[in-house]
């Protein structure tokens, strides 16, 4: 947990950022078992700080995002990861010990299956629940928010999530559709109006599921904290990133309206969509600040989905996608946070738009998937740190020699001036261990700056 100093409101965005970095980079109160672990922690945090500051660190940092690879490597399934925390812990320790990544990068494959089961979560399928045990979780797109509900969302997003979204997204919370207005709590004679519906069976069942899921989530958090604490103590790996948020367009497009519906909304009700996107900005910022502050970490992971090349025209990108993403980024930067954008797909058509003069220099990081890295260097160089681009296809179907050549080329061409992080384009689920090892080893040896 990051505790902002008393004069927080008087600090500039840059000073806030430095305060968050200082807290994250400090080894005080962190469980370092050996002097080596402590030294590693200091060196690795400085390395990533350097690239964010657009400097040359000691070497190119390794910043791949881990999915289910660590499980498959250790001989367990992604299903095991979600349901057997002991197996998860062993597999997670094994991967981190064997591969020695630079950072303790949270694995997207590690989620509490029990919590999802208790809530009867409808929006996703996960290993062994609607998809094979070896597959990563996948979204079931649907109109969890209806076409005529924009006004309700805009009027009160939290109330909308409580009474409309959650009862649809979670089978066990369907009773919350009758959640009484909390304003009834303002007066003595009105209180029964609030409490009576709470006693009805659908509400009781929903609350029971909610309480049980909360307890299960705490077990998960404990398991996660113990495993990560052990790795940090033993290997000195700093955790990264800390916070999470999404682009407002993806918040509405992914799990509220779905791709198909939001794209029809762009034509059928553009004004309402734009108003809703703006309404979501402070929520996107708040979610990031809350999660990153809780994790005592300056970085906020932001996976970008529906603004990629091919999804919409540049004109629509500038109208529907970018303005509220930009506002979110500026909100984060103002709070002293570093947006860590995970740019899935291609962004070749968007580079000129994202390099926006209103976003301060050296304040964001962009990890690319299939974007032309020469163009990225040309356009983002000197403005923001960037990384990525090792093809996941190569990690799975290629050879160690191919991977080594690819990593060397990225180091020689785009990492040469610093400000670059080595990473696969997408989350690493499927990869040959020898290929991932080749990526890591080449980065560690060839990536040293002289």
């Amino acid at each position, binding site marked *: 947990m990051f505790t902002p100093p008393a004069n927080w409101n008087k600090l500039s965005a840059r000073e806030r950022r430095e305060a968050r970095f200082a807290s994250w980079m400090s080894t005080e109160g962190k469980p370092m078992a050996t002097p080596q672990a402590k030294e590693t922690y200091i060196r690795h945090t400085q390395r990533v700080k350097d690239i964010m500051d657009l400097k040359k660190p000691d070497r190119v940092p390794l910043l791949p995002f881990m999915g289910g690879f660590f499980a498959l490597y250790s001989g367990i399934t992604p299903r095991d990861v979600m349901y057997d925390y002991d197996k998860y812990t062993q597999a997670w320790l094994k991967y981190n010990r064997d591969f020695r990544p630079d950072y303790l990068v949270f694995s997207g494959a590690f989620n509490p299956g029990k919590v999802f089961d208790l809530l009867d979560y409808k929006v996703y399928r996960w290993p062994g629940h609607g998809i094979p045990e070896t597959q990563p979780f996948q979204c079931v797109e649907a109109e969890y928010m209806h076409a005529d509900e924009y006004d309700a969302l805009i009027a009160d997003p939290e109330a909308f999530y409580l009474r409309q979204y959650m009862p649809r997204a979670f089978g066990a919370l369907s009773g919350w559709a009758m959640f009484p207005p909390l304003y009834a709590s303002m007066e003595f004679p009105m209180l029964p109006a609030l409490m009576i519906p709470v006693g009805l069976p659908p509400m009781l069942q929903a609350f029971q599921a909610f309480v049980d899921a909360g307890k299960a989530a705490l077990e998960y958090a404990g398991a996660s904290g113990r495993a990560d604490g052990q790795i940090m103590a033993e290997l000195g790996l700093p955790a990264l990133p800390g916070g999470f948020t999404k682009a407002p367009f993806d918040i509405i497009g992914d799990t509220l309206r779905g791709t198909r519906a939001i794209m*029809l909304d762009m*034509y059928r009700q553009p004004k309402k969509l734009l108003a809703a996107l703006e309404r979501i900005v402070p929520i996107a910022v708040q979610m990031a600040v809350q999660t990153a502050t809780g994790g005592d970490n300056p970085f906020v992971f932001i996976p970008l989905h529906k603004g990629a090349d091919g999804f*919409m025209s540049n004109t629509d990108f500038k109208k529907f996608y970018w303005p509220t993403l930009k506002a979110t980024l500026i909100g984060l930067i103002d709070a002293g946070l570093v947006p860590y954008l995970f740019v899935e797909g291609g962004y070749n058509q968007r580079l000129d738009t994202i390099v926006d003069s209103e976003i301060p220099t050296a304040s964001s990081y962009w990890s690319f998937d299939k974007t032309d890295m020469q163009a990225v260097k040309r356009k983002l160089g000197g403005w923001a740190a960037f990384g990525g681009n090792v*093809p996941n296809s190569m990690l799975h*179907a290629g050879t160690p020699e191919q991977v080594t050549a690819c990593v060397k080329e990225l180091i020689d061409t785009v990492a040469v001036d610093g400000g670059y992080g080595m990473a696969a384009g*997408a*989350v690493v689920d499927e990869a040959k261990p020898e290929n991932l090892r080749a990526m890591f080893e080449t980065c560690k040896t060839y990536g040293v700056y002289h």
Partner: protein
Amino acid sequence: MNVLVEAITDMREEDAVRTAKEMLDKGTSPLEVLDNCREAMTIIGQRFEAGDCFVPELILAGEVLRQISEVVKPKLTQTVTQKKLGRVVIGTVEGDIHDIGKDIVTFMLDVNGFDVHDLGVDVPAAKFVEEVKAFQPQVVGLSGFLTLAYDPMKNTVQALKDAGLRDKVKIMIGGGQIDDQIRQYTGADAYGKDAMAAVALAKQWVGG
């Protein structure tokens, strides 16, 4: 340009549907209305290929077409038998439930004159084999959004080979993490980066 074609290609949904209704009311033959729709879709397809229109436009055009066919169908006195360029079996491979990319490819193949048999998502290799036997397509399209589609794609190609069907079909693959390395890995004939690439491949293979 005809008023209906213009309304559809300008993405004026309500105008397009109203115009189609008015045309039918004034006695225009349902076949002519459908011809106009086809013409509009050809133009949208060309714009998509040229990078002038994108997913929202395809989805909206699909919606317009659906609404127009609803008003046209009851007025059709004969069944329309359009000569098809060829047959395609398509689906998202086993374990992957993503459908948006596949649906767009299906839609574009359909409006480009292919008879498309869409098997949906999470389609096991055995199902592809069964459907290829029954439907006898010239082209098979395998879709997959995630990296974990790599092996199911490879297995599907292998299953078609094992069933003795590999030489009878051309196989194309596509999706977010698909590239030429994965084409080689799976043993497919080609990969396409978008829906128009899929149409071009299918046309090339059926000699259209």
